[in-house]
């Protein structure tokens, strides 16, 4: 008898564990439907709209999470806790969830947001691997997702509920290659992280575009993983080939050291980077070596468009003078897209929000007018930026999709 008792106790403990975390939750769209009809009937009680934000708050990518949180917070402040939908003020709540940049945790977080919190849409995640793992959960549950920085092409191919605010790898690789060719560089060398989908995706796109334009890739070297911080050997070998430019399609944690080491081994050629170079840390860590480094970016903080000026000013004012980077800006845009969809959706259901997201056209956002294409990727241009000696980046040229 005692052993059964202990078993029952153990089970109680296990379920208690579950139970104590469960807050009485509305169950998704069904609850929303009734709530909407309530409002339509003129009932005073308006439900809270919940928007999930998924980003790495801890773990090795926590820096991206910080910028994403800050970017969304700008929208949060703009809204001031409520969102005006067709004349009615709805309280709005942003739920920030840490996915530790792990795909496993992202699936947990997606389930929690969709099933337990009953969010109407999700902003994030920022990494392609996380989006690829968790996307099918949102797709099956019918919850719209706007990824911030998940640039891999396969992400939006998961299904019609998955959107993104960023441009895709092939486009960015093409922009970089076209810039190099048009500036007059006939030969290029590449150093990339073969353990990272972002870097390999950009590399493939760059190589094919650059070759198609008539350029030659004189050398390409690899390293494995973000833990590696020594690129001297690869850079020495690349320098021996005397390329006219060096392409670095790598992550924020690696790029500043690469720029610095490239200069230290005597590479004097221009350096072209991917959009992860758009963050103040690159300039501060790379120091003097950053001068003249050119990168592809989602937006330019120097842009004089109203939306951009407003965003940059609000961001700097809200976060003690910290200037926004691409992560923050894309998180802001993704959130704005969701807010726009909420305000314009015929009814407040996930499906309706999805349909509205898919029809966004010429929405004014910091990076310009955004239109969501048929493949749920935004049709938006890129800009080329260049760092000056003081580590401030300046607008060079804009590239629009062909």
């Amino acid at each position: 008898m005692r052993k059964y008792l202990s078993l029952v106790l153990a089970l109680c403990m296990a379920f208690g564990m579950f139970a104590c975390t469960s807050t009485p939750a509305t169950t998704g769209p069904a609850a929303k439907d009734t709530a909407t009809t309530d409002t339509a009937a003129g009932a005073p009680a308006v439900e809270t709209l919940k928007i999930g934000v998924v980003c790495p708050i801890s773990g090795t990518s926590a820096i991206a999470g910080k910028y994403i949180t800050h970017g969304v917070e700008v929208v949060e402040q703009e809204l001031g806790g409520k969102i005006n939908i067709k004349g009615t003020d709805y309280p709005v709540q942003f739920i920030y969830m840490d996915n530790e940049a792990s795909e496993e945790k992202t699936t947990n977080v997606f389930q929690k947001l969709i099933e337990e919190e009953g969010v109407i849409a999700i902003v994030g995640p920022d990494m392609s691997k996380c989006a690829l793992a968790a996307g099918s959960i949102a797709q099956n549950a019918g919850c719209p997702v706007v990824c911030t920085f998940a640039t891999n092409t396969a992400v939006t191919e998961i299904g019609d509920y998955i959107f993104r605010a960023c441009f895709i790898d092939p486009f960015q690789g093409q922009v970089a290659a076209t810039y190099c060719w048009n500036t007059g560089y006939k030969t290029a060398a590449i150093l990339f992280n073969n353990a990272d989908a972002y870097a390999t995706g950009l590399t493939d796109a760059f190589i094919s575009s650059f070759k198609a334009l008539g350029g030659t890739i004189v050398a390409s070297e690899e390293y494995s993983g973000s833990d590696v911080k020594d690129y001297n050997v690869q850079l020495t070998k690349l320098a021996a080939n005397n390329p006219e430019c060096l392409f670095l399609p790598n992550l924020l944690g690696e790029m500043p050291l690469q720029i610095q080491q490239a200069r230290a081994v005597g590479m004097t050629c221009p350096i072209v980077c991917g959009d992860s170079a758009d963050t103040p840390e690159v300039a501060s860590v790379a120091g003097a070596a950053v001068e003249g480094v050119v990168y592809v970016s989602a937006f330019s903080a120097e842009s004089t468009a109203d939306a951009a000026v407003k965003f940059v000013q609000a961001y700097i004012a809200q976060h003690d003078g910290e200037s926004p980077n691409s992560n923050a800006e894309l998180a802001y845009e993704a959130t704005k897209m969701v807010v726009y969809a909420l305000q314009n959706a015929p009814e407040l259901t996930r499906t309706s929000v999805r349909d509205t997201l898919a029809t966004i056209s010429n929405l004014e956002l910091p990076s310009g007018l955004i239109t969501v294409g048929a493949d749920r990727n935004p049709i938006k241009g890129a800009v080329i930026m260049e760092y000056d000696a003081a580590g401030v980046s300046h607008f060079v040229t804009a590239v629009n999709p062909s």
Partner: protein
Amino acid sequence: MSTFLQYLIYGLQLGSVYALLALGYTMVYGIVGMINFAHGDFLMIGALGTFFIAKLFTSFNIDGTYPMLIVAVIIIIAMLGTGAIGVGVEAIAYRPLRNKPRMIALITAVGVSMFLENFPRALPFIGPNPRSFPTLFKTVRYSFLGASITSTQIIMISLAVVVMVGLYLLVNKSKIGAQMRAVSMDKDAAALMGINVNRVISITFFIGGALAAVAGICYASVYPQVEVYMGSWLGTKSFIAAVLGGIGDIRGAMLGGFIMGISEIFATAVNSTFGYAVGFIILIVILLVKPAGIMGKLTKEKV
């Protein structure tokens, strides 16, 4: 030839960081018999601490460099601080487990390591930002048989050797060294001989922490990017280096560190696509030939 020499210099540069960190691993292992998986995070604390200390001394900064005296002060404060944290960690987390199976201490060390990484990350003034490490040593570039070597690299490599020799002498010639060896052989018997075991182990952790701080400063001087997660993989690599050299052996740690660094660089030089895997294959081969590490001796087990 000059390329070979150049790669050798890069290998020694990377190897010296591994060696300095491996020395700490091997000291703790040799004397307490535990693997301190949080050792890599002591490196991070040393480097990040130096960053903040240097900020305090920023008024002494002239043209981006500090006077030698101030640099020495900064380094000493960082070493003392990290050493003290090492002693604290030992007293709080490891000492109660000293008589438990050593795997228990290892798992605790994994927990400590997670804590040391994520606690500063959560502190608002530290956070996850990578920071630029200040220039403590002025970099002068020398040309040498067609290869170039910087003063920082020379300092690093020679420091690793000097520290190794110093530690070796400390353990084998000094009084505290004799106590350390006694504790390493048999804690209970050492205690009976009038040795204060707790004090000896605290000193060991202090030295380990201080060495990690030195390793952190060296590492950050050549790879000037510091953030809270920088130590974890470096720590694992150095642990591998310590085992490769024969864990518990001070000379082995340095040898292991340099072999790791050099083989990593040369494997990359041959083929950067497979370099990463080849580095580990070399490791397995060495261990299969020398099952107790390069300097380690196979101990006869008594039944």
